[in-house]
């Protein structure tokens, strides 16, 4: 701020006109640079979409939309048969597991941080939850194979099978702990802090008077949450969940490490599978034929389309939320 005073200091009369034109040029240069950078961000999105479609063009013209419903992936030369159905299924199941667990967990943590925890506890737990999101996915995946998978295989999966085995997705436990289920759990760990921290901020933005008013009328904390906080913040929380979903759909590395790179659709969640992102991560480096590479790009196109839908939904929902809060 001291620097600003120096910059704003009086000028001598002779330098005034020179200063004016320098200022005009300076303003134009700064505006131009800022606009250029902003346009580059837009260009990056367009370029990414173009690159995906361009890379996939051979596969798109070869397989067409039938690619989506086709469940074989045999890159070896005599077959060269590619389809995305297995990976669409794997993506849907792992993301569904992640969302089923992380939406209630994330919202609960957000409520704890915004309404339950004392101020000092909140100052410690909040950052710790956010640090969970900072763990690199490759480390989480590594931990998943070495630590979590044996535990799941020995304890949790047999337990779920014995209790809920009548449901087809809790099938008998296979010999390894890798599969759709552990991938869903790892994704849960990645998504929970996203939903929790965004939802907490939204809960904290709910007007205090409304909550105090409800409390003064005798509402319990749960009733304040149910009756006042959640109705106001519902769309914001939904937007946070969509952002979390976007993260779950697109995560490649940690899923690749734990999902087992299966080539078939299994009803049981304890079996192996693969997602769109993890198939690309797993096979792109080893792909040799043009059609193979192009088909992996095709998976990228599908993933990009799904991601855009999830992210734009989140934006639209949160716009509505902001408008509603502003109107209040």
């Amino acid at each position, binding site marked *: 701020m001291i620097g*600003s005073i120096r910059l704003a200091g009086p000028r001598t009369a002779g330098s005034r006109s020179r200063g004016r034109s320098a200022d005009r040029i300076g303003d134009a240069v700064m505006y131009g640079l800022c606009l250029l950078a902003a346009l580059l961000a837009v260009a990056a999105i367009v370029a990414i979409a173009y690159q995906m479609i361009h890379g996939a063009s051979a596969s798109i013209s070869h397989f067409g939309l039938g690619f989506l419903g086709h469940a074989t992936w045999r890159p070896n030369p005599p077959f060269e048969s590619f389809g995305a159905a297995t990976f669409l299924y794997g993506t849907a199941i792992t993301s569904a597991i992640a969302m089923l667990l992380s939406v209630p967990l994330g919202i609960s943590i957000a409520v704890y941080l915004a309404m339950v925890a004392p101020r000092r506890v909140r100052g410690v737990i909040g950052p710790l939850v956010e640090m969970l999101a900072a763990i690199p996915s490759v480390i989480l995946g590594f931990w998943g194979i070495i630590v979590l998978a044996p535990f799941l295989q020995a304890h949790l999966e047999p337990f779920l099978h014995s209790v809920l085995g009548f449901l087809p997705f809790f099938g008998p436990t296979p010999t390894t702990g890798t599969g759709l289920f552990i991938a869903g759990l790892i994704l849960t760990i990645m998504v929970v802090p996203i939903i929790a921290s965004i939802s907490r901020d939204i809960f904290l933005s709910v007007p205090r008077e409304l909550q105090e008013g409800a409390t003064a009328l005798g509402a319990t904390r749960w009733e304040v949450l149910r009756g006042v906080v959640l109705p106001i913040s519902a769309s914001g929380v939904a937007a946070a969940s969509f952002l979390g979903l976007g993260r779950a759909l697109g995560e490649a590395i940690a899923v690749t490490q734990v999902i087992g790179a299966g080539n078939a659709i299994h009803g049981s969640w304890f079996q192996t599978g693969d997602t769109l992102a993890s198939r690309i991560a797993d096979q792109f480096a080893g792909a040799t034929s043009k059609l193979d590479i192009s088909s992996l790009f095709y998976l990228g196109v599908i993933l990009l389309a799904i991601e855009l839908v999830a992210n734009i939904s989140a934006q639209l929902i949160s716009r509505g939320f902001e408008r509603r809060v502003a109107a209040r």
Partner: protein
Amino acid sequence: MTDLPGSGPETSDPPPTGAGSTGEEPPSTGLFGTDVTDPFDPLAPSDHLRRRQFVSRLFTAGQTTAAALAVAVLGVVVYSVAARAASVLSIGFLTSGPPTTLNAPGGGVAPEIVGTIVIVALGAVIATPMGILIGLYLTEFAGRRSGPPIRLALDLLNGMPSILIGLFVFGLLVVGHHQSGFAASVALAIIMLPLIARGTQEVLLLVPVSLREAAQALGVSRWRTVLGVVLPAARSGILTSTVLAVARAAGETAPLIFLSTIYNPNIVSLNPFSHEGLPNIPFYIFTASEADEASGFARAWGAAFVLLAAILLANIAARALNRRSSLSR
């Protein structure tokens, strides 16, 4: 999972709720009922109220359990990494290359550490000025029409799976050329860019309008106001978001597996423009985790510990920085 709302244990004792207190007095008919003779007597809850309070406590307990679970998972992951890395961690692990004979124990990850630092630093050098310029554009120049599309683009870029960014940069810089540390830096820069831009935008919005108006009233031109008043006032906030973006990008693995995997792991290389990739920690952990070899695992845990410690420390530092700046504001 046992910590869904409503299924938690009932043993917690939340602070008293607003309505009434749980005294041991016999139930009264109500606040203004004829049975209540002394209005200053503690009010005893009715059965209905007791049930409502019980439900409220149940949910509070579930929410507390959920928070505890998240912290516990963080603790378990950090502990697992630290415990398994302990056997290999030493000064030599940080300063030496891989062992000379294959699959032998010992050795270190110095080339990977240096390579990661080079890739991430170059990425930050690309992304930081651009991110600040975009943040400036959004707060200082953008109008009603031009702001939302840029913000949307940043949010979409932020939600873009890093694997697709990897494919994009692969098609842009590697096809027809070769892998390089530079390509990896570009990919990480794309990951950092929206984080820095949105972070910058948020702190710039916090700079009081009165500062800008004061500069304007003194006849200071816009660009001088931005450079001399607005940016210095937002300095620590911008630094915070840059540190957080670097911490996020440093652990990104998905782009690197296309862009910086072919390299000589024995050589400490500083040149991101050489004709091959740079050794880096994320890909090192990824390859080791896909292999089946005990000594490689030990080194991978060591590398994971180094990376995790750096990232968590950067997060703590950014938080401390942010707290200091918000205190001084």
